[in-house]
Structures are given as C-alpha cells and as structure tokens.
C-alpha cells in the first residue's frame, strides 16, 4: 500500500489519460442530481457529488441482462461480460455495499456473471465531500472505509490524497503524476475521516447497528409494520435504489423460430406485489406489511446471518429520498422499535 498526493490539475490529466486507454465510468451531473455514467472527459467528473441516483451495483448486476442464449433441445451459450472498466468516484458506503455483494455472490452457486464483471472492474473510491440530505452512513459505520477499493481518493482542497491499495490500483496509478503524501496531507485526510465518521448522519440511529438483529428478534409482531405499510405503494423503489438489494427475476423469451431464445434476468424487489408468488399462485408474503417487514429484517437480520454479522444497510439514504409516502427510512423504524422494546 502506498499513499500519494496528486494535485487537482495532475489528477485531471490522469483521468483523461485513463479515459484514452480504457472504459471509465464516473460520477456526473444528471439534471438536478448525480449519477454514474460513462465518462468522456475529466471535465464532467463530479467528485464533489452528494449521492448518485443509482447505486454502483448496476455495473455488476445490471437492471436487466441476458444470461444466456439457448436452443430448445440443443445447447446453450452463457453471456459473460469481458470488458475491463474503471469505476471512478464510489463513496465509502457504496464500497462497503459492493464488498458485501462480492461475498454474497460468491457463496453457494457462485454467480459468474456478477463475479466476472467485478473482476473486470477497478474501483476508485472517493471520500464524501458533500453530505446528501438523507445520508446516515455515520450511524451505520460506513462513512469511511479502509478496504474494498483499489484506490481511495480524499479531497484535501487543492489536491487529492491517493491511497493505492491493490495491484490493480498500482497499475492504474502508474499513469498519474503524484508525490508521496506528506505528514501534513495525511493529517488533513485524518481530520476529514473523523469529520465524516460523525457528520454523515442526517438520521441518527439510536443504537449501535450490531444490536439491530437482537432488536428484531422481539419485533416480529410489532404494530409498526402495519402502520407504516398502510401507505406503501408496493412500488419497490426502496429496493431498486438500494446498494445492497440484489434480488432478481429470471425470464425466458424465444425468437420467432420458437426454438432459439434468451434467458434474461432483471432487478426484482421484495416490496413488490407478487415477489413471493410461487407456482400454483400461492403468495407467502401477500400483505404489504409482510413485505415491508421483510425488507427491514433482511437488512439487519437475514443478510447479516450470511456475511458475518455485517448489516446490509450502509446508510446511503437513497431509499429515504425515493419513497414518496416517506415510510422507507430504516432509521425511523429501528428507532421506533428501540423506543418501544428497548435493547436489553
């Protein structure tokens, strides 16, 4: 691991050099907001963004993709992405979410489609400069991260501190004109980390996130699920904008010869009506409240059981902003449960 400092001018040159060499996805303005998109010039890069509309998961698990083409009675051909790319400007909470997904998609039947895209990617993370209006990463301990990236950038005013963490990162950074970071630069970075670890907290969670699983053990029949879900559209927006939601639906379509076809998958969401519908029309989470509860159990109990207790909510706040009736905020539900049930 090496830590360097690169001036903003040299950084721009560095970004343009990478763009000339390979595909770069970077954070850019999109109307009134920000999102990841293919970058064609360093001038469009906005590392001062607050939060992106979509989570970076879409570059590993696209909203819809073809998994394979097949011939009925014949063989099949898997579709595996093979283009390397640089993902530039990932906030620490999203880095944590990607690291969780890496574990989940590697378990049991390893998902080659996801893992190949992941292997193709070089992740350049950036510490948060502007807090978004709903971020609560400080509460979830994801406001900063020391792992999960190839390079981490921290804006220290006239320059970036650039931590090069992996071999991929080292290869990329070889194109940058940077100097070894001074003690002063590192101190500046340290103070930014400290500030973010406290300050990215628009919705403070009243407990240490580690307690959430225990809290939920007592909360299955709590009235909050019905109360909140009364105005749930079942639109799945909270799932779809979430950096850690990864459920998908698989569907086949045939070509006009009715022999050859494609198997595709698309994002799904546990809040959607029919998500839990199975053969025969049986639906084991028919009520809005059942689905509403499931998401919050999933974030703090079911997924953590698969990945060593890590809470599958990273506090990005996207669901809070995306929910029109304003019921999706996990903190308001968890705090309500803390108030009613205590943590003892």
């Amino acid at each position, binding site marked *: 691991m090496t830590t360097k400092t690169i001036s903003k001018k040299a950084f721009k040159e560095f970004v343009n050099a990478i763009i000339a060499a390979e595909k770069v996805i970077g954070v850019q303005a*999109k*109307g*009134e*907001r920000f*999102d990841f998109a293919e970058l064609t010039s360093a001038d469009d890069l906005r590392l001062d963004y607050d939060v992106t*509309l*979509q989570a970076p998961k*879409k570059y590993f698990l696209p*909203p*819809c993709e073809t998994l394979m083409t097949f011939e009925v009675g014949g063989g099949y051909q898997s579709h595996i992405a093979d283009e390397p790319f640089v993902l530039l400007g990932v906030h620490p909470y999203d880095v944590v979410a990607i690291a969780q997904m890496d574990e989940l998609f590697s378990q049991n039947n390893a998902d080659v489609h996801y893992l190949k895209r992941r292997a193709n990617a070089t992740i350049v993370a950036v510490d948060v400069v502007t807090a978004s209006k709903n971020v609560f990463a400080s509460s979830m301990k994801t406001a900063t991260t020391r792992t999960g990236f190839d390079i981490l950038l921290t804006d220290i005013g006239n320059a970036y501190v650039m931590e090069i963490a992996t071999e991929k990162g080292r290869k990329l950074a070889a194109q940058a004109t940077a100097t070894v970071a001074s003690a002063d630069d590192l101190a500046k970075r340290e103070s930014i980390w400290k500030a973010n670890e406290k300050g990215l907290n628009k919705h403070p969670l009243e407990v240490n996130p580690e307690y959430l699983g225990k809290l939920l053990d007592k909360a299955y029949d709590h009235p909050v699920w019905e109360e909140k879900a*009364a*105005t*749930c*559209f*079942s*639109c*799945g*927006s909270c799932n*779809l*904008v979430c950096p850690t939601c990864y459920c998908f639906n698989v*569907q086949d*379509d*045939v*070509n*006009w010869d*009715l022999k050859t076809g494609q198997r595709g998958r*698309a*994002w799904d*969401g546990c809040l*959607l*009506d*029919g998500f839990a519908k199975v053969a025969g029309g049986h639906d084991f989470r028919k009520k*809005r409240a059942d689905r509403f509860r499931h998401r919050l159990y999933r974030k703090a109990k079911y997924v953590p059981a698969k990945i060593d207790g890590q809470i599958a909510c990273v506090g990005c706040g996207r669901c809070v902003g*995306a929910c*029109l*009736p*304003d019921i999706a905020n996990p903190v308001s539900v968890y705090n309500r449960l803390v108030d009613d049930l205590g943590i003892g």
Partner: protein
Amino acid sequence: MSKPRVAIFDFACCEGCQLQIVNLEEEIIDLVGAVDVVEWREASTDHSDEYDIAIIEGSITRPEDEQRVKQIRSRAKVLVALGACATTGGVNKLKNNFDLDDVKRAVYGKDAGKPHLGTAMTKAVDEVVKVDFHVHGCPIDRGEFTYVVRSLLMGKTPEIPEWPVCVECKSKGNICVWELGQVCLGPVTRAGCGARCPTTRFRCFGCRGYIDNPNVDAAREVIERYGLDINALKEKMILFASKQEPTIYG
C-alpha cells in the same frame, strides 16, 4: 402442427394499436409467418369466421358491439385485449362521467337523436366477455405484443408486469418526476412501457391502467405531503382511469 389462425378486430378506438402491429416493419414478416392471419381489416381484405386467437382492439360502447364481441368470444379459443381502450376502456371511458344524452348532443349536435347514433356506457372488453390476456398501453408496446404472441405460440403464459412504473424509472435511474413538481401516476400504474413518459421527464398518464392492488391511501398521503389538493390527482386520473376500480372520485 398447423399454424394457429389469428383474427384481429377493432371496436371503438383510433386503431393506433393495430398500427403499432403494422409498424413492426421487418418483424411483421416473422409474425405473419408464425401464424395464419385470417382477418385483419386494417391490413388485409381477407375475412373468416374460423379462428383460434382473437385479438380485440377498442372499447365496447354500443349494445350491438356487445353482441359482436360475444360472438367473437364464442368462436375463439383464446381472446387477447389489445391496447388501453380494450384493456381498461381507455380514454373512451371519459364519456361515463357525463349524462349520455349530453354527450351525444356535444358530439352530434342536432343529429344526436338519429337511430344509428346510439351509444351506451363504455366498457373494457373484459366487462363484457372473458379476456385471456391483456396487452396494455396507449399505444401498445410492440415488443410486449410480440412477446405475448410468441408466448401463446409456445403454450406459455406471458408475464405481464403486475408492478408499477416506478420499477422501470428506478431501473433507468430517472429523476422522480414528483421531485420535478409533477403529479405522476407511475406509483399506481402498471409497468411494461419502459417508463416511456417519465424518462422524458414527463408525468405518467396511467395509460396502462392500475396495477392489481393500487394503494389509493398512499396516493392521498403523497398529495398531502407535497402540499397539493386532491383534485390535482383526480384531474390526472380522469383521462385513462375514469370509472376504473378503485376510484377516488367518490
């Protein structure tokens, strides 16, 4: 196996959904190669009373049309409702908000009383006969239509989205048009269009009809949250969702 015989019929509508089929361009060759089109007034002079699949475009607005669609149903093994007018009644249901005599006078003036200008309350096709599959939208989505046809040819049940348009907006990374200050019907409207209108930063009109379980309470809540009057929502719902259940006209 012989190719299934398909007949396409139109009722009260602009025939724009049939036009979408004609607009399949090269793919129409595949379509007419896979099925035997025995009747299709908009594109062919052939006529037949024997068919397996009947595709109905348009809403049912006169008593004689009810008889006609019942006869088509009795002859078809599978009946598909094509486009908003057929699947929900579409814009034709606006009429149901008024007195029928007033409506006739507004449209036909002094001729309103003539016997061939009879009219009745507008109905979606499934308010008159059993519909096996719905292809929603104003107009239909060509890709969805051909997917439904191929599914029928395979003997598979096509998966028509039961989720709302928000799913497609979020998948595309659209800025929510509510954030842009518009009253969008996306949260209660069936997806499948690819969020075509909100993707151009314009509110969803609801042309694909409601999802199976629209949450009208949530819609009221959101209207309040955004400091709007409930009429702002009703005004938007009247165009494509007139007299659909559940209604908030009250």
